[in-house]
């Protein structure tokens, strides 16, 4: 196992598992790493392990399209996501790492009156909450992003768009490296190739995790398993209201700079940005069927490329280079689940669904608080598992649906 991974030792240590830790985080994705980082940094809890069945930077951490924004709709969600965006604004300095975090603006196009009304409502809600948001008419869109086809004679003419100028993108690999380095330096053990196979219980309290690298005792356990959260919960004896689907994305070959913002279209199921290196990065809606296979069906990609070509005729000459899928954990209300589980000392952080990348900082920040204080952070009180019993759902399908 020691030789299974080529680790950049100048970034993080590769320790052997200790017999026990104060906190074991299950899942070494961005949210798991972020949780461990904030446990150590904000709360001084350094006797922490992150156990990861694969390797750092192999799952959704690098299977996303790196969109960052905070223009959600509900009063419960907006402060959470915008606090997250403010954390992004400080992360490069705090982590001392060039994350290529670039607030180039996120445009959300609308193509129907109903959609335009919904997006205008979100713009208004954002502004009332102090989140930057603007409504652009088609001429403004053309000025802000010249390659968008705003002519009225296409199948779904553009009727306007919202713009969040503080939104943008970052380089996801760099975020993995930066967080792993920071957590490791603070004392967190990052244990790769360490798959959880069960939980050790004393009554209804978890006391350790059983892994492919042996038993590891744990004062508290945090499950941060994204699409595999339902499987982890099953090992601990409870269920989650989560369904796991493939979410696909693709990149083109490297082309000249043509696009300096993120553009998304909910109706046409496509969103595009251009990486600093030059590839066009595109995502679509999720596949319709449940899966843990990290791949989806080709017609989803075909559909998003059709939409992209109608909206951005200049992309006709680009070539499809690479496609991939991540497994996303979708809740009934498209909002995350944060906090206690039915098992004592076992906490859950999941359900970020199709839009988890942007939430990497805030997810770890509030989840670390819950692990330490045993109560939710004030930004996360509305996102408990119990909301599905009380009916106090936080419906973010409009904000999260396709515009990840």
């Amino acid at each position, binding site marked *: 196992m020691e030789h299974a991974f080529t680790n950049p030792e100048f970034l993080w240590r590769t320790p052997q598992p200790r017999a026990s830790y104060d906190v074991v985080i299950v899942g070494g994705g961005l949210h798991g790493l972020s949780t461990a980082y904030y446990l150590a940094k904000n709360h001084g809890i350094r006797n922490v392990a992150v156990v990861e069945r694969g390797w750092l930077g192999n799952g959704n951490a690098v299977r996303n399209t790196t969109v960052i924004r905070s223009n959600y709709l509900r009063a419960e969600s907006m402060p959470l996501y915008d606090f997250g965006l403010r954390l992004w604004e400080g992360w490069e300095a705090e982590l001392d790492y060039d994350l290529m975090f670039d607030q180039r603006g996120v445009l959300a196009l609308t193509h129907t009156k109903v959609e335009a009304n919904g997006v205008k409502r979100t713009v208004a809600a954002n502004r009332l909450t102090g989140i930057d948001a603007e409504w652009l008419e088609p001429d403004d869109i053309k000025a802000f992003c010249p390659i968008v086809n705003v002519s009225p004679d296409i199948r779904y003419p553009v009727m306007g768009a919202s713009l969040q100028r503080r939104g943008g993108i970052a380089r996801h690999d760099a975020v993995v490296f930066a967080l792993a380095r920071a957590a490791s330096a603070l004392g967190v053990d990052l244990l790769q190739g360490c798959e959880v196979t069960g939980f050790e219980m004393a009554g209804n309290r978890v006391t350790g995790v059983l892994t492919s690298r042996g038993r590891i005792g744990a004062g508290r356990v945090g499950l941060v398993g994204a699409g595999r959260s339902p499987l982890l919960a099953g090992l601990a004896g409870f*269920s989650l209201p989560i369904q796991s689907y493939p979410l696909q994305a693709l990149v083109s070959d490297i082309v000249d700079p043509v696009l300096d913002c993120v553009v998304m279209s909910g109706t046409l199921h496509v969103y595009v940005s251009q990486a600093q290196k030059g590839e066009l990065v595109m995502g679509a809606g999720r596949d319709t069927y449940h*899966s843990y296979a990290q791949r989806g069906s080709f*017609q989803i990609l075909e559909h998003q490329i059709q939409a992209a070509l109608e909206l951005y005729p200049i992309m006709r000459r680009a070539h499809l280079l690479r496609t991939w899928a991540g497994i996303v954990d979708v809740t009934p209300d498209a909002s995350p689940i944060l906090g206690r589980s039915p098992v004592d000392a076992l906490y859950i952080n999941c359900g970020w669904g199709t839009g988890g990348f942007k939430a990497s900082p805030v997810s770890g920040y509030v989840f670390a608080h819950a692990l330490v204080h045993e109560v939710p952070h004030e930004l996360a009180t509305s996102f408990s598992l119990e909301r599905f019993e009380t009916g106090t759902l936080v419906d973010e399908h409009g904000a999260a649906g396709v515009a990840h």
Partner: protein
Amino acid sequence: MLLITCPWCGAREETEFRHGGEGVRVPPDGDDPGWTRLLYYRENPAGPYAERWVHVHGCRQWFHVVRDTTTHQILSTRRLDGQEGAA
């Protein structure tokens, strides 16, 4: 793309169908936890999964499918009345 054998029409491409989620949902006896489960919880296994699809651009029949969620292989399809398909 999946190739799905409709019990009525035979093997057709996935684009003719729509996924309908978990196969059999049984209403509870009336307690709140039971309703919570019915409304919000679905099976989500890694492996064989009993689900329903509808041949929306074909015969428009709903039918049962067992599909492996780790490989996408379709293990069986059958009619809603439980009979094997004629196709």
